[in-house]
């Protein structure tokens, strides 16, 4: 019985692996667990039903669930690590106590869930303070809270989305353009699906009946040289 379940899980593993493996590298970026009493551990405790995995905290489940919080504080990071891109589902993120000098604008691409972000006090919140509902600064950190939807601002966007696409949030102060409604495909150039069956049916019927008709009236009596 157990063997059967295990076999089933093994079968499922390749399907689940990409999701399960997400964040693994970034979770092991620094040794230890989220610091006690830090932003991330407080969030995870209040959230319940979570478990920690290195510096991450994720949803509890039979396989490791979605990454919810990530504590990279005191990691001696000089710049934003590329592994951060694996943590796009994070709600809480702590980058304090690192010798970071800048936060490049694309670092938080795709972090649409992010609600609380702590950065060293010397740095601005990514996307500018306009991208956040609430920014508080204390001795050790600058806390950026509550992402604003950059598509809903009253200020007109510097670059509107092309035809057939609409603006969608893509992280703090970042937007992406996704196809609108019936449009799809590269550059959202296509609309709807081609009625292949209908077209094939009509054309096939017309071809067969015209061929038969003409064969009967024209070529049946023909002598081919």
């Amino acid at each position, binding site marked *: 019985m157990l063997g059967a379940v295990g076999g089933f899980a093994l079968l499922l593993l390749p399907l689940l692996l990409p999701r399960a493996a997400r964040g693994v590298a970034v979770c092991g970026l620094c040794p230890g667990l989220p610091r006690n009493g830090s932003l991330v551990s407080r969030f995870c405790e209040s959230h319940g039903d979570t478990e920690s995995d290195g510096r991450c905290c994720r949803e509890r489940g039979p396989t490791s669930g979605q990454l919810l919080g990530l504590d990279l504080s005191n990691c001696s990071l000089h710049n934003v690590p590329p592994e951060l891109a694996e943590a796009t589902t994070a709600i809480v993120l702590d980058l304090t106590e690192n010798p970071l000098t800048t936060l490049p604008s694309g670092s938080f691409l795709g972090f649409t869930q992010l609600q609380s972000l702590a950065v060293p006090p010397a740095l601005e919140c990514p996307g500018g303070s306009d991208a956040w509902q609430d920014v508080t600064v204390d001795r050790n950190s600058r806390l950026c809270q509550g992402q604003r939807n950059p598509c809903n601002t009253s200020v007109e966007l510097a670059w509107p989305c092309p035809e057939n696409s609409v603006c969608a949030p893509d992280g703090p102060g970042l937007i992406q353009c996704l196809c609108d409604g019936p449009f799809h495909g590269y550059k959202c150039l296509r609309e709807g699906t*081609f009625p292949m069956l209908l077209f094939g049916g009509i054309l096939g019927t017309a071809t067969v009946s015209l061929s038969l008709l003409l064969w009967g009236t024209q070529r049946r009596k023909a002598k081919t040289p």
Partner: protein
Amino acid sequence: MAMPGSLRRQPANRGLVSHCTHHHIVVFLLTFFSYSLLHASRKTFSNVKVSISSQWTPSCLNSTAPELRPYKLWNSSHLFPNAGEATLFLGTLDTIFLFSYAVGLFVSGIVGDRLNLRWVLSFGMCSSALVVFSFGTLTEWLHFYNKWFYCCLWVVNGLLQSTGWPCVVAVMGNWFGKAGRGFVFGLWSACASVGNILGAFLASCVLKYGYEYAFLVTASVQFAGGVIVFFGLLTSPKEVGLPELGADENDVSVEEDANRPLMGSDDVDDDDRNYSVQATDNDSQPKAIGFFQACCLPGVVLYSLAYACLKLVNYSFFFWLPFYLSKNFGWKEAEADQLSIWYDVGGIIGGTIQGLISDVLQKRAPVLAVSLLFAVGSLFGYSRSPNSKPINAVIMAITGFFIGGPSNMISSAISADLGRQDVVKGNSEALATVTGIVDGTGSIGAAVGQYLVSLIQENLKWMWVFYFFILMTSSTILFISPLVVREIKLLLHERRLRMLAE
């Protein structure tokens, strides 16, 4: 006297009406739509150019704006860095097509005369449909974009498409005799324009599903057309036991006298053939004419050269008119596209009316010459057209009447005349070969012309393009002038004889 012989003695203008069976109508419609469908798939290509070039390029915004995200949706295609280079490549594809089409015409005329016209036509339509399908639909479904692959496919497509014209003209020439040919062929030449309209319509209907479906639809319809042609087309009246048309001849004593010995032997030949068709059907296929033999037929070289000059002007109008209108007058591209239909309309009416006149006169070259003289005048007038759409449309239709008309007539009725003239009669099949030579030379002219017009247009003013057109039209007149002189002499001679008889 056998049937063909007696048929030949019939007065010219009764031939058309009295012998029009339902076979004639079906042949007319089948050949008409075969060529329309071939032309429709070419038109589709020019109508989806905008969609294709945006499929081949990344999104291009001004340099200050950040890149659009997500990357895969907006910037993953990198066949060309920008729309300008894609347009240049598409123009190159047009030129490649025209050249391979021209080369193909010479070859497929020869092939068409040696093999069964029906097989060649139906093979050409189906295989070119498959090539178009691979070009537009398959590459898009597989996301396989490669410049060289596209070029190769378009060369092959040009070669395969070229089977169409010589075959359909040959079939039409087999069924419709010289009497009334000018009118019938004039009407029939509308097939290219109808194909353009059909292609534009089909493309605009399905373009919203993606450009690959525009190719899919035209290719499938063309394929279906090929299948229908295979099952329904009768290439010649003798296939259903109808009397074969005799060689075209002027039922005038002058020519008959000149050809008497030749025709006498022909009649015997005819009897034999008719007999063998009913009996064994063996070796009844006349021997096909060689390429150089076909070139040496009287009038072929002169008409080919004349057509090269005229097709150059005619095709330049097709390709450049919308561009000229939107550049020179600042009219919208869609409006310019619509307006340029009037040129086609003028061409169809011109071809039909001039064909009718030439039937009545029984001489084609003088009609052409007069029409082309008017064409020079109308070109001059068109180059000075005021910025007004109705006036421009009227002058455009007049220009189409005097340029498109003669162009249609040379490529269809005159080609058929040349391929079935007395010299050829009886001992060979020359129709498709001659049509191929005339249209092939014309297409080379057209291909060179596209290049020259773009060169002149970039370096000099548009006015010089019109002067170039006028020069080319005058060269056409120059090339046919020996024929005009000969035919007018004949005409005067006939009149004198008739007067003497009375």
